[in-house]
């Protein structure tokens, strides 16, 4: 099962990493990003970082979580002084248009940060599981890719400390998740959040929005904004 999931993830990542199509390809042309994988196809050139505004949607809520080392932490402490991409998932979700897709996009961001020290200094990736029945710290430890070259990993996976804590976090972010059961991952809507250093949510991504190029440009837009550059 895990092998199958990893294979699917690898395919997704491969699809995401495929060369982007021309922004203005001829009508009816075949395009790149993941169309054959059931992944939404993006056929445009994303606007350049810093050329558009990302108004704050609302405050990013705090909450008590536990990480892959079984350490209890506050979500806000985890965010630290970084721009955060927060993804809500269940590690046993195998819907190609669900959690594996969100995780594939985070892999893409991690790869971008690995080759861009300035980005790496500012970016934190957080995967928050809403599957308390399955996603123990041990499971999370297998989920997050290890640190490279002795550097701290920009990616942390956590799970809320209790059902009550989870409910408050989900409600605060507006992340709809169905009833939690032991037998299967909870039903849910795909949501990924971009959070600035002031802990304001600056964008929310659903399936049709989750273009890694767009997300990366949004992160860079926030970095430019911190440097005083506004559209």
């Amino acid at each position, binding site marked *: 099962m895990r092998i199958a999931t990893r294979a699917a993830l690898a395919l997704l990542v491969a699809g995401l990493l495929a060369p982007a199509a021309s922004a203005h390809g001829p009508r009816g042309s075949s395009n790149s990003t993941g169309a054959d994988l059931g992944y939404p196809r993006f056929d*445009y050139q994303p606007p350049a970082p810093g050329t*558009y*505004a990302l108004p704050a949607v609302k405050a990013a809520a705090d909450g008590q979580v536990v990480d892959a080392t079984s350490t209890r932490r506050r979500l806000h402490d985890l965010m630290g002084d970084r721009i955060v991409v927060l993804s809500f998932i269940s590690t046993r979700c195998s*819907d190609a248009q669900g959690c594996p897709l969100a995780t594939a996009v985070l892999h893409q961001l991690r790869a971008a940060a690995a080759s861009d020290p300035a980005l790496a200094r500012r970016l934190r990736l957080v995967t928050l599981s809403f599957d308390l029945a399955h996603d123990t710290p041990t499971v999370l430890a297998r989920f997050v890719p290890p640190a490279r070259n002795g550097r701290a990993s920009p990616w942390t996976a956590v799970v809320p400390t209790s059902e009550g804590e989870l409910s408050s976090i989900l409600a605060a972010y507006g992340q709809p998740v169905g009833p939690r059961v032991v037998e299967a991952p909870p039903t849910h*809507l795909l949501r990924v959040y971009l959070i600035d250093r002031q802990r304001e949510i600056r964008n*929310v*991504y659903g399936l049709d929005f989750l273009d890694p190029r767009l997300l990366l440009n949004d992160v860079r837009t926030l970095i430019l904004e911190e440097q005083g550059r506004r559209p």
Partner: protein
Amino acid sequence: MKRVRIAMWITLAGLFAALAPTGARADEPCQSPYVQKITGEEEFVYVWTLGVEGMGDGSDKLVTVDVRRKSPTYGKVIHSVSVGGRHEAHHGGFTDDRRYFWTGGLDTSKIFIFDVATDPAKPRLHKTIDDFVKASGGVVGPHTFYALPGRMLIAALSNDRDHGGRTGMVEYSNDGKYLTTHWMPTATTNGAKVEKVADGYGYDVRVLPRKNVMLTSSFTGWSNYMMDFGQMLKDPEAMKRFGQTVVVWDFHARKPKKVLHVPGSPLEIRFATQPNHNYAFVTTALTSKIWLVYEDDKGEWQAKPVADIGDPAKVPLPVAITFSVDDKTLWVDSFMDGTVRTYDVTDPHKPREIYSKRIGSQVNMVSQSWDGKRLYFTSSVLARWDKKGADNEQFFKAYTWDGKALEERFALDFTKLGLGRAHIMRFGSASLYTK
């Protein structure tokens, strides 16, 4: 309390089931792709209804019509929730999680948010936003409500400076917090490429996510839509104040890229659904034409008239349209002759009328089910534009479509029922959520 919470999750479970990529869907096409779809056949139709002085409580209201075939109340109004007062109830749309239905009043610019998740048969008023004009910096007349993840994009019709057609789009969070305003492009603002004129008018908004393209259309301002229709027709200056543009936007950046010249007040925009179909239809109210807005072979967005609607010389006033998910059939309602016309648009450059039917003395909105087998019609355009006397029929009518003809299932007389002027329709469901 516990029972309510269980019901809520049953409801959400149905919404999540919509993540499955295949299967019949109850929802009408052409809505925001970011709104969760519900599976199966629609059970309720919500009708945002204008109040009429002296009729019932006289207030604008959200009416629930039961369209469950086996229900003992099939074809009946089973619920109505008034908002108090008349605000020129017009359009509305669901939030992305489909838990709330946002509706607008074109006159007072108030926004009424209904909870449709707790009990889908009986929506309740959840929240009212009454500072839309002030918060937005002067935008008037919230019209189209278009869901985005975590937020609502509202395309408006007018402004508080001259009550003309210059206007903007306004974004709110799902919580009802004002976020930002995007003014429609004019000749001197926003840097868009302009074909002929940039009038700054607004009406509808639709997005094609995979192309990062947003289209907006243009109607008229408060001074016209709140004027008596007959009086307006006799006022040459008023008749000059209609939109003539469709704007192509960079959706993510919310920046206008090109202002297309589409004279005659282009109203509702409907994108094709199928992959690689990079086009949309819009109809012009005053010139009675179907326009195709499309990406050409060079990747440039263009607009061109592709068909007449009825006899344009008789000004049938096309209003609402709906476009089937197989991209083959376009339905066009025209208000003055109360007729719906059906076009085969398999070749979008050459629409061909294949059917027409008179629905009533006047007709405005049309909604179709995802499978295209059921269509619903309502009667009202605007309180001061609706016909007078016996021609002022106010109805909700349900039909089936077998590919050849419309057959009436039932009709509701909104005047006899003391409800008011029936306008926008949206689908709801409850029992299907439990599957």
